């Protein structure tokens, strides 16, 4: 489309070139441009309206602007080749490996909930009622409770950042300890030390569990060694005294 210069058709005869625009012309042309695009800004003030009525250069500019806009819209509307297959191939190559779907995650979580519920049903009666009516012995149930609680705390601590960021080792590899990987808000509120103390207590409970259970059922602990003290009643009943060795048993 050939450009026809409106200035040469309508401009003042004294000059063949458009004059340098001043601020008033710029403001008026911003209004003309926005009006052509159907935009509300900037508002047409009385001053600008007067300028547009008086300035022959802006009148020519308005005509040129219409011609330019028509030309741009006609020229830019053209058919382009469909590059969808190439673009899609590039995108698919770039996509990371598909993660398991949300449904798969839900299924795994449901399985864990069912397992936890089953453990609860088995353990709690043994803890409350003792041997009567329990599916497992109180000793085994205590071990299970302590063990699972400890495992849950450790798993939570290591599962926050299991793989580690790029270039850094994962927390799972460097901190298999209680309290590791607690989120920042919890650390700020000093929850982590408390959690660590709870966790240490659990560990101690697990370590002490066999000894307590042995004591409860009347079996002598293995490691009393030189702790030869004990009350007369303990000595007479055998509780608290060293476990009989093979030699003493022979006697």
């Amino acid at each position, binding site marked *: 489309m050939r450009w026809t210069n409106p200035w040469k058709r309508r401009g003042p005869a004294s000059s063949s070139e458009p004059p340098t625009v001043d601020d008033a012309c710029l403001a008026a042309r911003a209004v003309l441009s926005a009006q052509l695009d159907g935009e509300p800004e900037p508002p047409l003030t009385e001053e600008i309206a007067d300028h547009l009525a008086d300035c022959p250069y802006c009148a020519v500019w308005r005509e040129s602007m219409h011609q330019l806009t028509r030309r741009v819209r006609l020229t*830019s509307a053209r058919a382009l080749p469909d590059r969808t297959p190439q673009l899609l191939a590039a995108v698919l190559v770039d996509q990371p490996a598909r993660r398991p779907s949300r449904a798969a995650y839900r299924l795994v979580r449901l399985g864990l909930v069912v397992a936890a519920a089953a453990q609860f049903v088995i353990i709690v009666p043994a803890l409350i009622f003792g041997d009567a009516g329990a599916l497992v012995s109180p000793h085994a149930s205590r071990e299970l409770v302590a063990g699972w609680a400890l495992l849950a705390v450790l798993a939570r601590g290591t599962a926050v950042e299991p793989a580690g960021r790029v270039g850094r080792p994962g927390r799972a590899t460097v901190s298999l300890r209680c309290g590791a990987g607690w989120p920042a808000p919890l650390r700020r509120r000093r929850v982590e030390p408390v959690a660590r103390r709870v966790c240490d207590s659990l560990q101690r409970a697990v370590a002490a569990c066999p000894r307590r259970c042995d004591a409860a059922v009347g079996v002598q602990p293995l490691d009393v060694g030189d702790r030869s003290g004990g009350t007369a009643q303990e000595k007479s009943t055998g509780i608290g005294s060293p476990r009989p060795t093979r030699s003493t048993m022979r006697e």
Partner: protein
Amino acid sequence: MQARRGDPAVMSSFIRATQREVYSLCAYLVDEDSADDLSQETYLRIFRALPAFRKESSARTWLLSITRRVCMDELRRRVRRRRRETLVPEFNAELPGLVPDDDHAELRELLRQLPAERRGAFVLTQILGLSYIEAGDISGCPAGTIGSRVARARGDLIAALERGSSRRTEREARPDAMD
């Protein structure tokens, strides 16, 4: 939003529906030779960022703002390269001699003479047909600034066309003078 799930059929229809605008913006903001590569780079960035898209703006505005960012990155890269390669002539030095016959190529060459910000505002509003507000969201500036840039871009283009028209008239008049 369905393209988030990674279904190739949905991704394909998303690309088919949007590729024209992405390609045009790349071609006008940078150049047609690089538009293919820039479109591809844009879609890679879009699908990487798609899970984080929170519908705070329209999908079209979001898509075009990423496209514009890709183009600006490319322009900045070229400026840096040009600074390094001091023997390469100035960017605008080649423009006066280039007056292609093809209307589309001529328009592209005219737009290339505009400063990047004015060119962006002009392409978004006049070629892609966005409103000043949408163009402002994409460019990260108020709608009034877009209006001002569009008006100035129009002024620059009109001046360039008038200069070209004058040169053509002179060229046509010269053989007559020789006679």
